């Protein structure tokens, strides 16, 4: 008997004589399970704006999220075309290999924060986001910020069900990050050049960085800002405010979906 599957095949017989090999054409997407779960998340998140924030460790993801949470009212008021009827409610899902240090930092803003510890996993997946989202009162949120694991490689391949992918690149990391991690930058809706208050100190060549970004990620909008000083935040908030408003509009156009959670 065959030791693998329990079939009655005689393994001592010459394999080619009795068991010719057969080719099975499959063409199965290896990310299909994650993609399916991401679509399910997208349906669940239909009434809110979901950001997937990606960067290498230390690029300033948590500092930016902290600033966004503190400036909720400013973001709500920033859309130049519409004034938002209510204040902005934001929730956060934050992924790290270990510890809840980021969640602790972010909770100081008063916003609900769920920490995911990925253990050895180098990225967040749609399934872990779905589980974390269960701990949030989604029906009463306008904005969900997902702070991914610090990594410019693996998270690029995993759709979480987000509306916008924001890739951060700090001036302290050098100008050529897009050339080194093209797949990540090509997946971005917007790239944020962070820590611009340090640009002069570290001798950052802005023109060179923008040139590389344009070559590798021509699809991405670029925002240059400092979460510490607040420089450059106004145009970024206008962008977010508008996206939140459009999201609400979209949910209203499909009655029954927005508050059916």
């Amino acid at each position, binding site marked *: 008997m065959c030791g693998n599957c329990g079939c009655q095949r005689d393994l001592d017989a010459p*394999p080619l004589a009795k068991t010719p090999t*057969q080719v099975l054409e499959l063409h199965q997407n290896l990310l299909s399970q994650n993609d399916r779960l991401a679509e399910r998340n997208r349906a669940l998140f239909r009434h809110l704006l979901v950001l997937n924030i990606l960067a290498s460790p230390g690029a300033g993801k948590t500092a930016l999220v902290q600033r966004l949470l503190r400036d909720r009212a400013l973001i709500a008021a920033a859309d130049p075309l519409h004034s938002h009827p209510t204040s902005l409610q934001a929730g956060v899902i934050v992924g790290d290999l270990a510890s809840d240090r980021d969640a602790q930092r972010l909770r100081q803003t008063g916003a609900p924060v769920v920490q995911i510890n990925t253990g050895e996993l180098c990225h967040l997946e749609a399934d872990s986001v779905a589980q974390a989202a269960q701990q949030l009162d989604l029906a009463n949120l306008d904005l969900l910020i997902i702070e991914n694991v610090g990594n410019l490689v693996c998270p690029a391949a995993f759709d979480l069900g987000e509306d916008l992918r924001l890739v951060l690149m700090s001036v302290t990391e050098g100008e050529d990050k897009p050339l080194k991690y093209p797949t990540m930058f090509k997946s971005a809706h917007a790239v944020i050049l962070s820590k611009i208050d340090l640009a002069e100190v570290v001798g950052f060549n802005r023109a060179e960085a923008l040139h590389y970004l344009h070559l590798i990620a*021509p699809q991405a909008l670029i925002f240059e800002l400092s979460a510490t000083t607040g420089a450059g935040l106004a145009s970024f908030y206008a962008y977010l405010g508008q996206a939140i408003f459009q999201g609400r509009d979209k949910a209203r156009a499909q009655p029954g979906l927005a508050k059916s959670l």
Partner: protein
Amino acid sequence: MHEVGLMQAALAIALDQAAAQGACQIHALELHVGQQSGVVPAALAFAFEVVSVGTAAAGAELRLTSIPVRCYCSRCQREFQPIDWVYECPDCHGLSTDIRQGQTLELASLEVS
């Protein structure tokens, strides 16, 4: 190293499909790896050695076929294959954001008996 998880997914599909066909040995797996799939082929090969141990795919040949990126230039209305990570149309030198091929990651076929 998300390649280990992806290889586990590939192996699970392969074992299922092989069993469904009544096969008990997987001789080869062919994966199509897009150049913009975010996956490193060498890491996939390493992961396969690890995850296939003790399964019907142990010792199988892993064939990794690289799928090149192809872009569409809307100005010239044609597809082209970029020469590097800058997706510049060879005719008009415009940058393309319309990627038609090269992002896939799939288990293309199996050889079983």
